[in-house]
């Protein structure tokens, strides 16, 4: 009976979390729609301006119809917008004449995922470990150095860090490339060289994003661990004869991880802004550079597409961490 009660609560929680995620996504879409219509000028012009040169008049007319631009704003246009968006139709770019926004985004996505993914994995591994260690041995020399450095990293704009890294390792020392994601000369090389070239290009931008993230993770993991260390159950563990290593691994680690998981969702804004600005510094051919081009060229359809993508990834990331929290902490299951 207790088991089924537990199961019921868990599925209710998952339902609740999922509902909130969908609601948030819905609000993102509505905001996107409204912003679109606020811009002066005929929305059809805006949406199709980029397509003019390469699309025939009939195609434009049919597109107008399919978007319902001849009907009232709410609810017809809104519903239309939602359904076309849902089908992956995000309009045409102004700047890249005639190209579909969805195609542009898909083309740029892998580079960003590689960059952010590698940076995030490195940051979580290093940041959480260092933070937990600093909190465990708080007050020691290592703790002072680690937490001081982390606070500074946490306050540094990652793109500026990127510029400093370029200055030092690329311009001054010439060790690593500070521009683009590959060298043209290596594009046709065989696999090992090709991979090596890509990896070398990845180092500095990944470092720029990861260092800032490490700062954040260290700060939070350290605070979480400092709280756990003073908990009564740590005294119990000590009384039971656990070694300090066993206490850390069996009783402190998982408990200290809980606030860190929550943090991951809280600093998504940091990750997104970090990735976008760092990509711009390194001319990394990902979503970030696309965003910068869209902002400066007032390429609204692309900007809208990017917003939708960011909203979607943030909501999904939130959903994942919410569920992960449920697995880690039996109290919220």
């Amino acid at each position, binding site marked *: 009976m207790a088991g089924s009660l537990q199961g019921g609560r868990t599925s209710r929680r998952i339902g609740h979390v999922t509902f*909130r995620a969908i*609601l*948030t996504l819905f*609000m*993102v879409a509505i*905001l*996107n729609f409204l*912003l679109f219509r*606020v*811009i*002066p000028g005929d929305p059809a012009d805006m949406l199709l301006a980029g397509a003019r040169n390469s699309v025939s008049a009939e195609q434009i007319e049919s597109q107008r119809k399919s978007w319902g631009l001849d009907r009232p704003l709410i609810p017809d246009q809104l519903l239309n917008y939602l359904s076309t968006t849902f089908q992956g139709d995000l309009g045409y770019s102004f700047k890249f004449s005639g190209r579909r926004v969805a195609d542009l985004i898909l083309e740029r996505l892998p580079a960003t995922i590689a960059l952010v993914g590698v940076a995030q994995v490195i940051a979580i591994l290093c940041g959480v470990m260092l933070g937990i260690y600093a909190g465990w041995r708080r007050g020691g020399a290592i703790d002072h150095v680690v937490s001081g450095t982390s*606070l*500074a990293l*946490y*306050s*540094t*704009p990652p*793109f*500026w860090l990127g*510029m*400093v890294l*370029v*200055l030092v390792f*690329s*311009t*001054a020392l010439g060790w690593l490339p*500070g*521009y683009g994601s590959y060298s043209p000369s290596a594009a046709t090389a065989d696999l090992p060289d090709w991979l090596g070239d890509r990896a070398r290009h990845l180092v500095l931008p990944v470092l720029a994003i990861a260092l800032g993230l490490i700062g954040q993770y260290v700060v939070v993991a350290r605070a979480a661990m*400092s709280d756990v260390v*003073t908990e009564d159950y740590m005294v119990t563990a000590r009384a039971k004869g656990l070694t300090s290593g066993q206490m850390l691994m069996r009783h402190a680690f998982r408990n200290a991880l809980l606030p860190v998981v929550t943090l991951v*969702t809280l600093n*998504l*804004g*940091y990750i*997104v*802004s970090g990735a*976008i*600005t760092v990509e*711009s*510094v390194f001319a990394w051919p990902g979503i970030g550079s696309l*965003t*910068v081009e869209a*902002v*400066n060229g*007032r390429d*609204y359809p692309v*900007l*809208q597409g*990017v*917003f939708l993508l*960011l*909203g979607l990834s*943030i*909501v999904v990331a*939130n959903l994942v961490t919410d569920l992960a929290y449920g697995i880690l902490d039996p109290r919220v299951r």
Partner: protein
Amino acid sequence: MTKLTAESRRHLRTQAIKSFLRRFLGHNGAWLGLLALAFFLVLAAMPGALVGPLQTAITATGDFLIPPSTQHLLGTDEIGRDVLNLIVHGARTSLTIALVSTVISLIVGITVGMTSGYYGGRIDAWLMRTTDFFFVIPSFVLALVITPVVLEVIGRGGDILGFRPSLFVIILVIGSTSWAFVARIVRSQTLSLRERQFVERARVVGTNDLNIMVHHLLPLLVPQVAANGALVVANAIYTETALSFLGLGDPLQPSWGTLLSLAERAGAASSGAWWYFGAPGLCVLIVSLGFVLVGNALDDTFNPRRRAIP
């Protein structure tokens, strides 16, 4: 209950302030942070007196991209402007944006959080759902799409309430998208305060809701709001810098972020012009670190960890 005379109440208050200051200033971080902030506030308050009027693109005073010298302590930019001059004036722009947008987000956050916590029920449910949205979607992401659209709508010329339009828009957008954090904290505080006796008593006596909120609840929220407000400022500086870096700042009244953006476009990092982007970046780092340190110290002071002795 004993009645407190005005005299003894005043005494109690000075006592409380004294003990607060003693604990707050006991943190080394608080000192460092306050020192850094004071320095930059002075820069921002009187840039004209320190380095003369803001030189625009037209009044270049030196050669292009020359390294620091006695004439230009921090060198010049790609069109010959004095970097020190730009930075000191940038302090004013950056801090104004950060502080004003923080004030906006505190006002919105406190209002939403207090209303939500005080009235509860349906109002709470709807306000919190809205708060959730702003909590989940980062301020930077919202600002990134809203700012260009709003700028397009109102145009970049003229000025609004004494601000240049792009500054005004950035302030407004950052302020109106970063309040969710504050609202959540204020709401949970209000929920627990609402049950206290003095609120009940005020209600029985017939004090109206607004009065209760402003005179009875608000003063008790100050500690939490202050500690988190410092972090909100740090965040606002960060968001502003990133937005300006992407080209949404005002080139005619450059903030530190705008300067970094200009430096980036001039290829400062790849041409070795460290003085051009080094200084504005350091300024951002020091100011936001200052606010983080002060915020941490405030938080520590108001929510002391477990006592040293059981």
